[in-house]
C-alpha cells in the first residue's frame, strides 16, 4: 500500500523545505500551520522544535482568501489627501477596516502611481450597480477613471495571509495574541515537558513492533505522570500474537533521549519507506492503523488466521488501559461514588474532599503510584475519565480515535505527523471545531528536530 509512502514523501518534502527555509513551518493541505500559529519552542532549537496549535476553524489557504469587489481609481498624488478625506466621509469601508484606502504602485522606471478605493462594488458580475451619487461627484470633479478590482474580505490571521493580501491590495495586520480555551501558550517548562513526553511516545512507537510506527501516551500534566501507554494492536501478518502492548503505569520515561541517534534511525527507516527500497518495510506501512483504517475490509485474499482486531488503534488501546488503571486504583468507587454525587444535593455524608478532584491532586503528585495503592481510594483524587489528561500520538488520529478521545474527555492532544487521508483533526475532518460535541480538546502539532530531514546529520 503506497499510502504511507505517499505521506512520508510529502513529509520529507516539507522537512527538506523546512530545513532550507529555517523558521518557515511546513504547510500541508488543510492542515496548514503558518508561522504565526507558532506557540512555543525551546531556546535550544528555537526554529526547529515547535508546538503548533491546530485551531478549531479550518484555515483557508493564504492564496485563496475570500475577496470582495471594489471600485478603485488612479489618482493624482496632489489630490490624494483631499479625496481620501472626502471618501472616508461619504463611502467609509465598513467592516473592511483592514484595507488601506490607498495603494501605491511602483512602476518600473517611472514614478509611483497612487490608487484609491472609491467604494464597494456589486459582487454580481452581470449586474453593474452604479456608484453612489456623491462618489460619482468625486469621480467627476477629479477626473477619475473608476475600475473594479478585488480586495481581501477578511483580516489577515497570519503574516503569510497578510503577505498574500498585499499582493491584491495593501491591508494592515496585527499579529494575534493567544488564548486558546484557557491554555495560554506554553512556558519554557511546559514546552520542555511536552517535548519530553513526545519523545517518549516516539521511543514507545519504536519499542513495539518496530514496523508499526505508532504509539499513544496518556499523561497527567499536573503530576507529570504517565497514566497509560499503548502501541497499535491491530493485526499484522508479521506477528504471530495479538498480545496487547499496553503497559499501564510501567513505562519509564527516558529523559536521556536527546542524542538523536535513535531518531535518526527512525528518519532513516522512514526514508527507506519513502524511497520504497525495501520490500519488507514496504509491506509494513499499513500497520499504522490510523493512516489507512479501511485496509482491513479490503483484504479479500488474506487467508491467514484472523488473530487481530482492526479497531485496536493505539489511542483506543491507551484509553482502555487508562480505564483499567482507574478500575484498579479506585476499585470501590464505582456506583457508590456516583450515587453519592447525586445525594450531595441533600447532604454530604462522607468525605467531601473526594469530590474536589484537583484539590487533592497534590497527593498523587507527591506520592506517585506507590502511595496511590496504599492509600484508601477515598482520599485520592479521581478524575472523571481522562478529564485533565493529555494524549501524545505519533500520528494525527483517524476519525474513530479522535472521537473516542472526545468521549473519554481528553484535555489536550499532541501529535507529530499529519494524516492527510484519514486524519480527523484538520486533515479530513476537524472534530475540535464541531460545535455540537459535548467536549472539545485543544489540538497541537509538535515539530521535532529529531524527525528532521535525515540530511541534517
Amino acid at each position: 500500500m503506497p499510502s504511507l509512502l505517499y505521506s512520508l514523501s510529502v513529509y520529507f518534502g516539507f522537512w527538506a523545505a523546512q530545513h532550507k527555509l529555517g523558521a518557515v513551518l511546513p504547510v500541508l493541505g488543510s492542515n496548514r500551520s503558518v508561522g504565526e500559529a507558532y506557540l512555543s519552542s525551546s531556546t535550544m532549537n528555537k526554529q526547529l522544535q515547535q508546538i503548533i496549535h491546530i485551531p478549531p476553524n479550518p484555515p483557508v489557504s493564504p492564496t485563496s482568501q475570500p475577496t470582495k469587489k471594489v471600485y478603485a481609481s488612479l489618482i493624482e498624488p496632489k489630490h490624494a489627501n483631499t479625496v481620501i478625506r472626502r471618501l472616508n466621509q461619504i463611502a467609509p469601508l465598513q467592516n473592511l477596516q483592514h484595507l488601506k484606502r490607498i495603494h501605491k504602485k511602483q512602476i518600473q522606471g517611472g514614478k509611483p502611481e497612487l490608487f484609491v478605493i472609491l467604494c464597494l462594488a456589486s459582487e454580481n458580475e452581470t449586474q453593474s450597480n452604479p456608484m453612489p451619487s456623491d462618489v460619482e461627484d468625486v469621480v467627476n470633479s477629479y477626473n477619475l477613471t473608476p475600475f473594479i478590482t478585488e480586495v481581501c474580505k477578511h483580516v489577515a490571521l497570519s503574516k503569510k495571509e497578510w503577505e498574500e493580501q498585499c499582493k491584491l491590495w495593501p491591508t494592515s495586520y496585527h499579529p494575534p495574541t493567544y488564548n486558546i480555551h484557557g491554555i495560554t501558550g506554553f512556558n519554557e517548562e511546559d514546552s520542555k515537558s511536552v517535548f519530553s513526553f513526545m519523545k517518549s511516545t516516539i521511543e514507545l512507537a519504536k519499542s513495539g513492533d518496530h514496523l508499526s510506527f505508532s504509539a499513544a501516551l496518556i499523561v497527567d500534566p499536573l503530576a507529570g505522570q504517565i497514566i497509560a501507554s499503548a502501541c497499535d494492536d491491530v493485526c499484522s501478518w508479521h506477528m504471530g500474537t495479538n498480545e496487547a502492548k499496553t503497559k499501564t503505569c510501567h513505562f519509564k520515561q527516558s529523559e536521556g533521549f536527546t542524542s538523536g541517534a535513535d531518531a535518526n534511525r527512525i528518519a532513516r527507516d522512514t526514508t527507506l519507506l519513502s524511497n520504497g527500497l525495501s520490500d519488507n518495510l514496504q509491506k509494513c506501512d499499513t500497520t499504522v492503523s490510523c493512516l489507512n483504517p479501511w485496509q482491513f475490509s479490503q483484504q479479500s485474499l488474506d487467508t491467514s488466521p484472523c488473530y487481530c482486531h482492526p479497531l485496536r488503534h493505539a489511542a483506543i488501546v491507551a484509553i482502555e488501559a487508562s480505564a483499567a488503571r482507574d478500575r484498579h486504583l479506585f476499585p470501590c468507587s464505582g456506583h457508590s461514588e456516583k450515587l453519592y454525587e447525586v445525594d450531595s444535593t441533600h447532604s454530604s455524608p462522607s468525605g467531601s474532599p473526594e469530590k474536589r478532584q484537583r484539590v487533592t491532586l497534590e497527593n498523587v503528585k507527591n506520592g506517585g503510584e506507590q502511595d496511590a495503592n496504599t492509600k484508601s481510594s477515598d482520599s485520592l483524587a479521581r478524575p472523571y475519565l481522562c478529564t485533565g489528561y493529555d494524549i501524545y500520538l505519533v500520528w494525527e488520529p483517524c476519525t474513530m480515535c479522535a472521537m473516542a478521545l472526545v468521549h473519554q474527555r481528553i484535555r489536550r492532544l499532541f501529535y507529530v505527523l499529519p494524516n492527510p487521508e484519514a486524519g480527523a483533526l484538520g486533515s479530513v475532518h476537524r472534530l475540535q471545531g464541531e460545535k455540537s460535541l459535548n467536549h472539545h480538546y485543544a489540538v497541537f502539532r509538535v515539530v521535532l528536530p529529531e524527525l528532521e530531514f535525515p540530511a541534517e546529520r
Partner: protein
Amino acid sequence: MESDNLAYMELAIHQAKLAMESLEVPVGCVFIMDGNVIASGRNRTTETRNATRHAEMEAIDILLEKWQRDGLSKAVVAKNFSQCVLYVTCEPCIMCAAALSFLGIKEVYYGCANEKFGGCGSILSLHSSFSEPFISDEIPQRKGFKCTGGLMASEAVSLFRSFYEQGNPNAPKPHRPLVQEKAER
C-alpha cells in the same frame, strides 16, 4: 422484510433496556447475518469507566472474538462483516460510524437520531462513501454503508427520556472546575 426489521430492532431495544437496568445510558444493538442474530451488545461505559464502550463496540468485540476462536481467516472475517446488518437503537456516534466503515459493514438501521454525536448524517456523514473522481492507489479507499434511521425511534427516545428523568445516576460530573460546580448546585 419490514416486520423482520421491527423484530430485530425489538431485540436491540431489549439490549437497551438491559443497559438501563445496569444504570447505563440505554443504547443496545444486534448484528444480523443471513437473517440470524450473531451478536448483541449494550452500552457499558459506566461499568468499564471507558466512554468508548458503546453497544456497537461491545458487539463488534464479541464477533471478532468468536470468529477468531473459530479460526476464520482475515479474508473470511472481512467478508462476514460485509454481509452484516446492524440494528441499533440510536444513530451510531462519530466513533462507531467510523469503526463500522473501517470494518466494511453492509447496512445499518437505527432508531432515533443522535443530534450531538451522530456520525450517520447528524453531525458527520461517515456512512456515505466518498466516491473519488478517480481511484488512486495512493488514497485509502473509504467505505460507506447503507443507513436507514427512524426505525422504532419513539421507543428509543422514550428509553432515553425515562433514563434521564430518573436523574442519570452516572452523570459525568464533576467535569468542570470546582468554582462552576459550586455555582451549579
